């Protein structure tokens, strides 16, 4: 039902799946080229192992879509798109470390430290973090001289990325999340929202904001897209929590009811299932409001991305 609703929305045809597949392929090619196997090879192999090992590339696609939405040419957004995916990968590598969440598997594959050892996993993460900024800041990452964004725009993009992933953003979310696990009392709704807004929404925010900035968007457009991203970031987590309660393990492709069995705080636990669903509806509605002012044809990718996050079945 969700998919059908998405397809007819606005009465326009939009091949969302085709769009995602084509953009993900372009991003994968750009990522492959951005991390050549240089000396020392093992460091670069570890970076490539985690970076190129799959994933839906939601963040880079958001970046490309935001750039086009404000009238920028899509190739202009490939370097920032790669940068946000590098940061995402870095945060997963460090999150999976034994001293953090201690995960052996990621997307069905052994995690970086399992394959390459802990020291190299730390270094590969650090190197991806550095490379993300280098790739974003260096004008030579961009297609050609007439296409690379002017320096003030690139500096603004670097500043946004730095803020979104640091101790005010992604790191804050990871820190508070780690601090909150294993507590006797469930965390409050405020704290749950803080964690998701920082741990998940911050990098989605950086993704669309960077795309809009390099694409030459106005301040008003950038701020609308920022609010859109914060809504879908939170939406993603609320839907995740709902699916954990309502779907079987088989449907999800992972263990269902895991959150319920653990001490982890979730929206259904704190709000109940009905109110969680209402909250998800509200977030989807708010996200769509933010992009309603744009040309509907150009906004189609972001509209469908929001629907996809809201109506996914796993």
């Amino acid at each position, binding site marked *: 039902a969700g998919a059908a609703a998405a397809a007819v929305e606005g009465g326009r045809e939009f091949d969302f799946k085709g769009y995602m597949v084509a953009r993900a392929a372009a991003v994968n090619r750009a990522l492959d080229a951005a991390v050549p196997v240089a000396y*020392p090879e093992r460091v670069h192999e570890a970076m490539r192992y985690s970076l190129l090992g799959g994933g839906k590339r939601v963040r880079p696609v958001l970046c490309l879509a935001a750039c086009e939405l404000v009238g920028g040419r899509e190739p202009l957004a490939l370097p920032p798109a790669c940068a946000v995916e590098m940061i995402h990968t870095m945060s997963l590598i460090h999150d999976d470390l034994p001293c953090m969440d201690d995960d052996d598997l990621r997307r069905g594959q052994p995690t970086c430290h399992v394959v390459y050892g802990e020291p190299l996993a730390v270094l590969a993460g650090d190197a991806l973090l550095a490379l993300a900024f280098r790739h974003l800041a260096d004008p030579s990452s961009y297609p050609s001289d007439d296409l690379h964004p002017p320096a003030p725009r690139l500096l603004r993009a670097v500043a946004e990325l730095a803020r979104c992933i640091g101790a005010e953003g992604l790191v804050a979310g990871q820190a508070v999340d780690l601090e909150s696990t294993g507590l006797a009392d469930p965390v409050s709704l405020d704290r749950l929202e803080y964690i998701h807004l920082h741990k998940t929404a911050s990098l989605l925010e950086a993704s669309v904001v960077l795309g809009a900035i390099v694409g030459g968007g106005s301040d008003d457009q950038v701020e609308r897209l920022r609010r859109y991203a914060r809504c879908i970031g939170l939406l993603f987590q609320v839907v995740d929590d709902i699916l954990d309660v309502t779907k079987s393990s088989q449907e999800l492709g992972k263990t269902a009811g895991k959150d319920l069995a653990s001490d982890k705080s979730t929206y259904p636990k704190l709000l109940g299932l009905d109110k969680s669903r209402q909250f998800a509806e509200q977030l989807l509605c708010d996200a769509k409001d933010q992009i309603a002012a744009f040309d509907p044809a150009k906004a189609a990718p972001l509209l469908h991305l929001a629907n996809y996050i809201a109506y996914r079945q796993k």
Partner: protein
Amino acid sequence: SSAAAASFDLRSYWTGLISEIEAELEAAIPVRYPEWIYEAMRHAVLSGGAKRASPVMCVAACELLGAPRAAAFPTAAALEMAHAASLVHDDLPCMDAAPLRRGRPSTPALFGVSTAVLAGDALFPLGFAHVIARTPPALVPRPALLRVLAEIARAVGSTGMAAGQFLDLSGAAAGGEAEVLLVLEKKFGEMAECSAVCGGLLGGADEDDAAALRRYGRAVGVLYQLVDDVLMEDEEGVGSNGRSPGKMRSNASAVRALGIDRALEIVEELKDKAKSELRRFDDKCGERVLPLYSFVDYAVHRGFLVAGAGAGAGGNEV
């Protein structure tokens, strides 16, 4: 200008700069929620004992070209934050497992491993944000600032300091001369090179000046560390197994791998190389080149001890 360099008071220059750099760093890292992350970041950067060699090099290279030092302070702070981030991760139990850093508890030892990982991850972007927010636009053209950011990212990345730490961990430092020097270049030369070239770019260096500063910085970084190793060989019982935190991970020091005679030869070569790169600035920059000459002499002779605010056990660590 060797005689002039000898009369230049590097100690006053350096200690004067340190207090300004400390103030810049102090203001750059506020304490907000989640406080423990900010406290860990502050500990990594501000707990004292650091020589601030990278920031001082950056400011000196900027002043060399006649630009005001205010143009360089934000980048100087970012260099120190990037450096501190890599040291915090070097000290992790899975890496060097260092309980102490500059005579004080290391960040992982004091704040726990996961907080240390995150503090390192947060320091690096904070440095970038600081450069962009604080560098006076009237003093530095925006394209030059972009180049500075790309330089810092390159220096700490997979072909720079991260490569050096990997090569050291995998035992390259116990290899032949080429391997030993490569580890020194990656672990210590890259940051000094980056500091010098960033200072130059901030000061308006042209391509040739920037390239000379790059070669100068790299030579000084390796020189400083190699002399450290020579001094450590002379002084038994410094650190454990003759090794101080922050140096080569392998117990065999660079000097032991090279042999003391060869090490001293290389010291002379690096000293000459660094000074020869400065010659081009003699006439056009006058006395402003003196601090850079004196860094070379200091690296070799260590006429005084440098340490930042609240310091005590500075040691020889850069």
